[in-house]
């Protein structure tokens, strides 16, 4: 990894998405506090979305400056990583009329993320470039802990961020994959369902049959009544998309792991809108809300589009 030494820019005129590599909590605090203070000193709105313990550490470090900063717990905002972009969108929209740029700190990736969550977080990092490509100017710093994250994760951070920083040393990432590749259909393979899964092919007349079937599956594997019904709504929305846009039929696969109740819908359609599951359409627009809703209802949603079709895998954590 080669580092350039660019001075901290005084102003930005577009969305700047930057990975910040740090070592341990002290490195996190030093790097992010300097970034946040610069924003506070410039009178910029600042939103920090990190873990609760890091929020506490930052409050201590920032002292009275912390009062000018909005904090949110990433464990809540980003439990499902696909909910993070909408949260940033709200922040951007709220400050759209601010006469100066604004900034944020968001740490969606930490060592305890599961393998499935990690992939979705990495997808989220790439999609941030797409979501805010035409946005008003703002600066998002994404901390990565080099002491706990694997080299592969740090390598992917360089691909998903146009800019990287080590402390105050900032540079463009020469490995950034670019906007087009960030927006391309996501086709990282999903692991196969376990042998002990159940398949339910469905067509136009079968939608209502999927609902009791999903409910029974969810309740049988320990989901509470409300979360089981949440999953029913999510499966119904994805299956409706299969019937309407995915060739008119699909397959529902259901199984459970030690951690999750899982439902997967596969069909022959291709999902080409990269932000379809993270954007709530305008009120007067018909359609386009089903995938958004799955992310609001489910703990993790994995969407993959291949040449042969689309797979949407919905996870609800057990217990």
């Amino acid at each position, binding site marked *: 990894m080669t580092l350039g030494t660019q001075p901290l820019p005084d102003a930005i005129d577009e969305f700047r998405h930057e990975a910040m590599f740090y070592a341990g909590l002290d490195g996190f605090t030093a790097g992010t506090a300097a970034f946040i203070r610069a924003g506070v000193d410039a009178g910029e709105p600042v939103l920090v979305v990190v873990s609760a313990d890091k929020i506490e550490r930052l409050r201590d470090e920032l002292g009275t400056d912390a009062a000018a900063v909005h904090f949110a717990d990433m464990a809540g905002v980003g439990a499902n990583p696909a909910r993070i972009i909408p949260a940033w969108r709200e922040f951007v929209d709220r400050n759209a009329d601010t006469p100066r740029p604004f900034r944020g700190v968001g740490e969606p990736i930490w060592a305890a993320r599961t393998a499935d969550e990690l992939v979705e977080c990495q997808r989220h990092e790439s999609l941030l470039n797409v979501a805010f490509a035409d946005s008003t100017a703002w600066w998002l710093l994404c901390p990565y802990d080099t002491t706990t994250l694997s080299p592969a994760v740090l390598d992917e951070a360089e691909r998903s961020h146009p800019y990287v920083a080590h402390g105050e040393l900032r540079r463009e990432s020469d490995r950034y994959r670019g906007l087009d590749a960030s927006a391309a259909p996501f086709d990282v393979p999903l692991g196969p369902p376990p042998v002990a899964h159940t398949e339910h092919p469905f067509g136009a007349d079968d939608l*209502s049959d999927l609902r009791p079937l999903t409910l029974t599956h969810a309740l049988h594997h320990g989901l509470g009544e409300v979360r089981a*019904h*949440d999953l029913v709504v999510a499966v119904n929305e994805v299956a*409706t998309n299969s019937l309407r846009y995915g060739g008119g039929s699909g397959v529902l696969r259901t199984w459970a792991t030690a951690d999750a109740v899982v439902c997967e819908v596969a069909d022959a359609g291709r999902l080409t809108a990269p932000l379809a599951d993270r954007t709530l359409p305008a*009120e007067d627009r018909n359609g386009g*809300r*089903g995938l958004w*809703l799955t992310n609001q*209802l489910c703990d993790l949603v994995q969407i993959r589009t291949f040449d042969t079709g689309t797979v949407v895998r919905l996870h609800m954590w057990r217990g």
Partner: protein
Amino acid sequence: MTPHEQRARARALRVGDHTCWSYSSATEHRNVLTAYLASGLAQGEKVVAFDRRGAAGRVAAYLSSAGYDVPALVASGTLVLGVAEDEYAPDGVFDADARIAGFADVAAHALDDGFTGLRAYADTTAMLAHVDATRRWPAYELRCDLLTTRLPIAGLCGYDATRSSPIALDLVRSVHRVCLGSRGTSRFAVHGGGDGSLELAGEVDAFTADQLESLLVGAVDDATVPVLDVTHLDFADVAAMRAIAAALRRMTTRRVGVQLRGPSPTFRKVWNSLRLHVAGVELVPA
């Protein structure tokens, strides 16, 4: 259902019951209708019967066979006989407002004249396919359902199952509180509640949401209280929620204190996630 059971159920219908009856034979028609009308006469109700065109004299014959002096009943104003097509679409024009106002007026006068209520029968098979009525008919039926929650009316809507589209029949069944014969395959029902609210029950998804929106938007103004009750709504998808929101928006244009009553936790979560909040509408528990 045996003929005996059919007659028993027809006799048991009371004011406040808005009943969909899909009949499939002349014998069934005679059995049910005779029992229904005779029950009303026995209870001191004014009886109005609009049979389909081409069946002139059928209802009178039923009552005569049952021992009633039909000319005397007509002369006293106790019994009114007519032709459904002429009553519902005079000159080929269906005016839902006028028809509902007509029933309300007859019911009010019946009470003034000392009757205990109004018992109405209409064979409305033709209206399901009527060029001027077909699209508005289900919402009209829902408005009739609401009418029977606020006036002492028993309404029996007869549909000849052998002449009706099963899909159209399913939809009209879903807006009657009571069904004689098959309930059909409709997955949702919407009708007047005991307190004059609108009650929505069952399951609504993207393939029935348009029907629901048309029904609700067409009938919300007739609810006695500005309440849409979803306590018994078992499932609603995004499209259904948007249909409900559209109906509530309509309700708020004419009413204050509009309530969406009894949403489930999942309903609330979806509603909030879709940001369907309608100004002037309060979500309240059942």
